[in-house]
């Protein structure tokens, strides 16, 4: 192999369910490894919020869709000598396999580094996989690959029910399910075939333990199992949906080494070079096993394993792909020992998935063989109790740990245990409290008794704490509680005390956590690692706490926590950039974060990494030990922002904007008063404490109104309400209104534009700002909006007003650092709807499109080293468009419509000569395909029908055959747009929608809901769902659909230019 000079790396695109931030981590590490080996790196990734697409990483970055067509164009242009497929998830892998199959790689003589494509195929195609493993006598689940529903039913009959139906080539278990009867199987198969042409019907292993190994192998055949992990939830629940511990806890040495040996044999036989994940089912009764899956690429699990052990899997995998061998590489943690080793842990980690199912009213909360979670947390501890309680809090779902939670009530605990939802962990604790025995819970859940006993020990400790009331907790019990992961707040709640009183008491008893290193070798060799966690199972710190060493001091940066809807990789980008900027200025940096999918938790980003909670308690613990110059909490989104004032009151120096100002912006009353003072308008609003008051106020300001409850019963929290009847239903079903739980009602302005200002200020003076225009009208959450930079359709006057308001607010709040203001504009009247004194979701987008790093500018201002910059971004010669990525196909039952609650899981952004080019690229990058021949239209409401008419005409003019539902069809015909009516399913006539969508006769669905009628299940909802379930592209927003049609008319696919970032000047 001649050594390549230039390598092409494929990224994974937007964050979506099943493919999230872990690929920013793996791609970034790969780039560092390749550059260390002297290669020029070209990266294709439309995810603009990633670190890997930042300056100083790859040599060239293409913000383009990771699709065969675009990648081929980049190959033709760049002529790389090597291709890397294993760092960009299933997206990159599938794209690479497609290019290999269609001969592009052969044509350009482009070799795939690392695991060869032939081996990848064996891991992806069930039949080849089973055959390959059978060749060396390894066991896989008995199963039969089928291509039709009938064949699937025959296969199940021979295997015996229940069976599992799994789609091949699908990320995160998409399209898989367990079927107990032929009827259920028929449905499951139909769904699975929409995701893949081949489905495996296999023996059901429910109740077996699920175990994973992460293995690296070099070309010389050296192979090590870096980490083994055990799922708390047994088989039947996707590993991405499972609580996971590492190392495994309930396996004997014989079992874990047998599975390890199988892993090494399998990986060697398949011919993997690089990193590989292997999943097993293990029968708890007799130790029998099945190999469930092999992923010959970096994965979610490998990111977890990497953070759990400190072994840089992605970095090493990239080196191995280049032909290096393991014994040549050194352990980058210890620097003195070899990379050819298996980490020994002296702690354990617990990962819990983060779900956001409450954001979707109609989505089942049950968890199973398909992935629904949007992020994860990892907690490190020296006991399971400690780690699991930490992890529960890290979820930031309003729990204080496993116990002492207020908001959990289970209708049927038995059902919760048998048919798990996202809340089962808390259900187990509740059941134990209610007297369920460990054995009974084991029978219902099949979770190993070991885990259940540990949870019971937390529940027992809770009871002992409660029994202390009203006397203070004795020191012995206090210590036990801390060792079992109880937070000060939890103890306070259980003993009628306050968090600060408990803190004071335990400090009196000299109960403070010890800071321990994650050093990969369990202290056997001295390590200079900066990778740390806090535990109460320790009596000495591993690291010294010195101040300065003559430098300017150190700064603590608070990370963004788990990815969830609304808080994603963009905040990690901000945190990493903040740390790097601080480092550049000579400051020491301390990062606190607990998300294993991030780059901020890579040990080479900061001087010290605390993989720990972002709670007030833990931040203060670390602060008191480290004594930094101050804490930077404006980069990690809302989680750190929320503790600003409390930290300040506890004596922590909060850097940047004064915490009192943060409070003034966050507190609705204070902020309203401030806007009044500076003469800035905002939509009328009021906080209301009874249903009658709410109705009265809504009538006064007039419908529609936006309603935000503080207590949510079901469904999305925020909603737009169009009339009295609607309000009644909403208040009755979705929320509670009382003096304790008020609702806020504000005027909702229809057909208004939404605009955002991202800016940085220095002691009240704006030093940089960018104005971003939303494509969708107000009413779509800013996280779901399509954003355009620079704005294309704003009045100059509007832009001037927006800037002016930004300046006034910055001054009034004495802002130093990042901030974001959201506006609505209608006919030049501008109102402020939100203001956040922290970095916003669009900071990476704005920074990269405008080529001005807003985070660096903010850090300079915060550290008192700012200068005037005043970057405006209106005179760019190109346009950036950011588009949301939705994961509706994963969320069965979710209505794919954007509203006031955010629903997207990620985003992409692309650059173009004009808005049309950039938008088309961006939407293609979210997995959209351009329609070839047919479009189905259904537009709700007279007003919207009229507004969309122009676009409908344009579609017809472009030669598309138009289908439409009853009223839309009639309206279009009246207005001279030829179309074919399709009947709704309930109309019982043909041709109907279902046949057309299921028969793949529709290339694009444009379904614009009537906002006033979007409450109940209706036929339009069913149509949209059908489109999602059959993977037909769908647009549901009027403005976005208009823009799409305009873009379609303006550009052909061949007009979409392939240019790298630096070429846009």
């Amino acid at each position, binding site marked *: 192999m001649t050594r390549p000079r230039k390598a092409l790396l494929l990224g994974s695109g937007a964050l979506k369910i099943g493919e999230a931030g872990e690929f920013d981590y793996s791609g970034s590490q790969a780039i560092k490894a390749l550059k260390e080996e002297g290669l020029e790196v070209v990266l294709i990734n439309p995810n603009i919020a990633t670190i890997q697409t930042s300056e100083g990483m790859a040599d060239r970055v293409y913000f383009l869709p990771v699709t065969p067509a675009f990648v081929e164009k980049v190959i033709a242009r760049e002529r790389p000598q090597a291709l890397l497929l294993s760092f960009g998830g299933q997206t990159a892998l599938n794209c690479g396999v497609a290019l290999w199959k269609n001969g592009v790689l052969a044509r350009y003589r482009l070799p795939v580094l690392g695991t060869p494509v032939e081996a990848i195929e064996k891991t992806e195609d069930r039949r080849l996989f089973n055959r390959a493993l059978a060749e060396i006598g390894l066991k896989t689940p008995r199963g039969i690959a089928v291509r039709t529903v009938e064949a699937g039913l025959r296969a199940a009959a021979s295997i015996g029910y229940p069976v599992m139906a799994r789609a091949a080539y699908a990320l995160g278990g998409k399209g898989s399910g367990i079927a107990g009867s032929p009827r259920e199987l028929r449905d499951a198969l139909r769904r699975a075939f929409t995701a893949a042409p081949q489905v495996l019907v296999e023996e059901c292993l429910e109740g077996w333990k699920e175990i994973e190994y992460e293995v690296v192998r070099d070309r010389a055949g050296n192979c090590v*199992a870096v980490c083994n992990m055990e799922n708390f939830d047994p088989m039947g629940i996707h590993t991405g949906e499972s609580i996971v511990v590492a190392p495994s806890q*309930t396996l004997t*040495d014989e079992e874990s080494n047998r599975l390890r040996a199988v892993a090494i044999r399998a990986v060697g036989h398949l011919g993997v070079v690089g990193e590989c994940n292997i999943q097993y089912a293990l029968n708890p009764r007799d130790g029998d096993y099945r190999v469930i899956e092999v992923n010959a690429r970096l994965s979610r699990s490998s990111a977890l394993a990497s953070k759990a052990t400190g072994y840089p899997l992605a970095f090493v995998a990239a080196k191995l792909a280049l032909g290096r061998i393991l*014994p040549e590489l050194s352990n980058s943690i210890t620097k003195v020992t070899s990379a050819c080793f*298996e980490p*020994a842990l002296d702690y354990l980690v617990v990962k819990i998935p983060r779900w956001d199912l409450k954001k979707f009213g109609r989505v089942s909360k049950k968890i199973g063989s398909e992935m629904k979670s949007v992020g994860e947390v990892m907690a490190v501890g*020296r*006991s399971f109790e400690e780690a699991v309680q930490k992890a529960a809090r890290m979820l930031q779902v309003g729990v204080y740990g496993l116990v002492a939670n207020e908001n959990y009530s289970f209708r049927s605990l038995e059902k919760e245990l048998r048919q798990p939802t996202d809340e089962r962990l808390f259900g187990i604790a509740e059941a134990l409290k209610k007297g369920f025995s460990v054995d009974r819970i084991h029978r219902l859940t099949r979770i190993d*008794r070991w885990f259940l006993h540990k949870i019971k020990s937390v529940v027992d400790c809770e009871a002992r704490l409660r029994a202390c009331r009203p006397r203070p907790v004795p020191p012995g019990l206090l210590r036990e509680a801390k060792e079992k992961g109880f937070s000060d707040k939890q103890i306070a709640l259980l003993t009628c005390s306050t968090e600060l009183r408990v803190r004071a008491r335990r400090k009196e008893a000299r109960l403070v956590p010890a800071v321990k290193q994650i050093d990969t070798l369990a202290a056997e060799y001295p390590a200079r690692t900066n990778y740390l966690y806090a535990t109460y199972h320790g*009596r000495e710190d591993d690291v010294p706490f010195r101040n300065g060493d003559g430098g300017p001091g150190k700064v603590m940066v608070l990370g963004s926590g788990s990815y969830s809807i609304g808080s994603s990789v963009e905040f990690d980008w901000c945190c990493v950039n903040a740390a790097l900027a601080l480092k550049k200025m000579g400051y020491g940096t301390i990062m606190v974060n607990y998300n294993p999918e991030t780059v901020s938790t890579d040990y080479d980003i900061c001087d010290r990494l605390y993989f720990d909670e972002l709670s007030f308690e833990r931040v203060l613990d670390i602060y008191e030990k480290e004594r930094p110059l101050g804490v930077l909490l404006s980069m990690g989104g809302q989680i750190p922002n929320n503790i600003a004032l409390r930290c300040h009151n506890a004596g922590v120096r909060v850097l940047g904007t004064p915490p009192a100002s943060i409070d003034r912006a966050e507190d609705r009353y204070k902020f309203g008063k401030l806007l009044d003072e500076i003469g800035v308008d905002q939509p009328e609003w009021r906080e209301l404490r009874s249903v009658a008051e709410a109705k009265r106020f809504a009538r006064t300001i007039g419908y529609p109104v936006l309603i935000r409850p503080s207590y949510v019963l079901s469904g999305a929290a925020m909603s737009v309400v169009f009339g009295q009847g609607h309000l009644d239903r909403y208040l009755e079903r979705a929320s509670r209104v009382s003096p304790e739980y008020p609702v806020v009602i504000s005027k909702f302005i229809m057909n208004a534009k939404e605009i955002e200002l991202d800016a940085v200020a220095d002691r009240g003076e704006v030093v940089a700002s960018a104005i971003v225009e939303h494509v969708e009208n107000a009413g779509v959450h800013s996280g779901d909006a399509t954003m355009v930079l620079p704005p294309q359709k704003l009045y100059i006057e509007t832009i001037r007003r927006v800037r002016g308001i930004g300046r006034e607010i910055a001054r009034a709040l004495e802002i130093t650092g990042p901030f974001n203001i959201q506006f609505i504009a209608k006919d030049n009247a501008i109102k402020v709807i939100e203001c956040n004194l922290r970095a916003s979701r669009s900071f990476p987008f704005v920074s990269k499109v405008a080529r001005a790093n807003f985070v660096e500018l903010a850090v300079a201002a915060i550290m008192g080293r700012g200068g005037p910059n005043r970057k405006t971004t209106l005179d760019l010669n190109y346009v950036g468009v950011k588009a949301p990525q939705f994961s509706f196909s994963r969320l069965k039952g979710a209505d794919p419509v954007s509203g006031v609650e955010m629903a997207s899981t990620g985003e992409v952004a692309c650059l173009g000569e004009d808005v049309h080019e950039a938008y088309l690229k961006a939407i293609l990058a979210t997995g959209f395909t351009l329609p070839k021949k047919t479009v189905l239209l259904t537009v709700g409401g007279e007003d919207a029908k009229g507004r969309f008419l122009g676009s409908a005409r344009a579609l017809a003019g472009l030669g598309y055959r138009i289908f439409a539902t009853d009223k839309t069809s009639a309206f279009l015909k009246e207005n001279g747009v030829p179309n074919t009516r399709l009947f709704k399913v309930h109309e019982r006539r043909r041709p109907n929608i279902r046949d057309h969508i299921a028969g793949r006769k529709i290339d694009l669905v444009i379904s614009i809901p009537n906002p006033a009628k979007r409450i109940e299940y209706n036929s339009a909802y069913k149509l949209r769902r059908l489109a999602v379930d059959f993977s037909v592209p769908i647009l549901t927003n009027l403005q976005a659909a208009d823009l799409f049609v305009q873009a379609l008319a303006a550009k052909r696919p061949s007009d979409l230019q392939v240019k790298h970032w630096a070429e846009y000047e």
Partner: protein
Amino acid sequence: MLYCSEIRTEDGHIKRAILALADGTVLEGLGFGAAARAGGEVVFNTGTAGFPESLTDPSYHGQILCQTYPLVGNCGVDPGSLESERPRVAGYVVSEVCGHPSHATSRKSLGAWLEENGVPGIAGVDTRALTKRLRARGAVTGLLAVSDGPLGAARLRREARAVPDPNGRDLVAEVTTPEIRIYNPEARRTIVLIDCGVKMGIVRSLTRRGVAVVRVPAGTGADRVLAFSPRGVVVSNGPGDPERAAAPIAAVRRLLGEGLPLFGIGLGHQVLALAAGGRTYKLKSGHRGLSQPCLEEGTKRCRITAQNHGFAVDAASLPAGWAGWFRNANDGTNEGLRHKRRPVFGVQFQPEACPGPADTEFLFDLFLEAAR
């Protein structure tokens, strides 16, 4: 003192425990296992599983073992997976011992099993901190005491200084089999196993490959060994300073002259080196764990091995005709040697695994191919 409520008995009864080191360190914790006192050399092991297997490894004879990994005994004790009849450690130091083991093969909890066998244990210790101390200062002797009543920390601290180094004793003689045992006697080929404190994993690794194994006491002379007409001889692992194992060294020296295939494992490897004229020395803190990487000299292969040794062979001391075979990838110490022409070799690690990875099990095949 750290707290660990897992070992609270049903009636809430708690045993106290103190570990006193010869350097003056005193660690307090909760007692489990037997209410007893034991002195020994305090060493650490970084494995994360296989605790009953480790505890029954006779190479731990005379040692108080600190388990760095904090959660111990989760799978309980399976009498079928022990490496010798009973626990061999003098005492056991852990962070947390599991009071509710959970596994289909578990017959009793680790604590109950240690109690039956008279081995004291201390829980609630910051094992990472202790490991760091042992790493920095080297192995030290210590005294572990578990009691239902008061312990007297000051007295134990004094007495700990007087605990003799067990490596001064002939530990091999204390753990070797008292009589000859024959496994798989019907097999065609016979291998003699010189038992210096053998792990049953070695016996199983041999019998599984279809040979008869004659396990002889460590004091057995070469003539007696040869009387079994073996096709090869294995010298087993065992405890302590190899230089004290005079009888096996003498026997091996004689056997080397007979041209028989020889395979030394662990202490057996050191015995082989000494018999060949090489030297051994004490490592600062030893290698005890399940993931030690070993490079095969002259190749690009690196193997993950299980290890338990406090002494090592000085590779530079080997006479002509011998070569280093494996080397520790972390600290470069010798992990194997072989004769350049004859089928005689030894490895410092444990190819039979149990506990640990079996990546080097092929060495038994290599040996038996030679011992045709």
